[in-house]
């Protein structure tokens, strides 16, 4: 119903979407308010849990039409909205980047689907979009391109994951103002609003489980593998 009425930048969201009750977990977008209607979702994934699942990609295709993504993006070639099958990605093409573009919306007319679509449905659409764009399946960042330095790998972990949704690192696509600016992160002596010394151990514990260290913080926990965490820490420590 809300969907049927929602019109943004000439891109009207109509069609069967309104009659599809979204099953599963609802997803929250960037939080502009500290008021909390329910518990925070504890963990953010950085990889698509349905990546490489052919059935999920089929479902994603159906959902792409049901939510009328096709209304603006056509069959992927673009129309009112940009093409999804070329190699131009303003907001990144990792599954997590696409996930967040869907949930948060983008300023030039892409509506925010947060609250209208389930997490599961969003990952399926992201998997479908990556499939039509012919993007290879994502592997944990540390496992590919072994020649890369930890700083480079860590930067990828940062830019592909959900960090970009809240933080700025000047000189990258990560320019959100919701959380603290991390451009000179390594020059800070304390983290977590001044509660902890800026050491590797604290930083790691903070990234993996911030709610436990500072109950009520808006920073969500992130699920990472050891090598991804290691690279991410090294990247953050390079931000002098």
């Amino acid at each position: 119903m809300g969907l049927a009425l929602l019109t943004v930048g000439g891109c009207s969201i109509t069609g069967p979407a309104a009659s599809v009750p979204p099953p599963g977990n609802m997803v929250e977008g960037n939080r502009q308010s500290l008021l909390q209607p329910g518990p925070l979702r504890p963990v953010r994934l950085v990889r698509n849990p349905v990546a490489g699942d052919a059935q999920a990609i089929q479902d994603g295709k159906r959902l792409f039409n049901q939510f009328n993504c096709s209304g603006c993006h056509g069959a992927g070639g673009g129309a009112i909205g940009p093409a999804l099958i070329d190699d131009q990605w303003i907001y990144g093409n990792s599954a997590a980047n696409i996930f967040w573009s869907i949930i948060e919306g983008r300023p030039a007319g892409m509506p925010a689907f947060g609250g209208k679509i389930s997490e599961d449905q969003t990952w399926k659409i992201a998997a479908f979009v990556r499939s039509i764009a012919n993007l290879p399946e994502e592997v944990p960042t540390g496992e590919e391109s072994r020649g890369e330095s930890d700083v480079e790998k860590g930067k990828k972990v940062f830019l592909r994951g959900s960090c970009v949704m809240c933080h700025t690192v000047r000189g990258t696509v990560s320019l959100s103002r919701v959380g603290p600016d991390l451009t000179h992160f390594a020059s800070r002596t304390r983290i977590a609003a001044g509660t902890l010394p800026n050491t590797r151990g604290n930083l790691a514990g903070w990234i993996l489980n911030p709610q436990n260290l500072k109950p009520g913080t808006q920073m969500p926990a992130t699920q990472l593998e050891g090598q991804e965490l290691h690279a991410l820490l090294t990247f953050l420590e390079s931000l002098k």
Partner: protein
Amino acid sequence: MRKSLVAGLAILLASCSPKHSVVAGGEPNTGKNLVGWYGCGSCHEISGLPEAKGLVGPPLRRIARRVYITGSVPNTPANLMHWIREPRKVDARTIMPDMGISEQHGRDIAAFLYTLD
């Protein structure tokens, strides 16, 4: 140095007749401060340190009585020190980070961990 060794030994003996001897050259009180500085408590609950309330890894308590540590290696001072200093060398997939801990700091921290109730 010898004095601190004796002190460490005394603490250890007083605590719970441990299976393992004190870490040679390790100073438990220094280790306690270092644990706070490196931030072990952001991932571990540590007995006797209320500010160490992390729940990423297992709680650290009664380490001196453990038979194995990290679920994989026998509990010896050398193994404990190696784990503290280079966990990713012991287990390439672990989430516990290498924290750039020096040899001496590793000794001090290990000595402290062996005093935990």
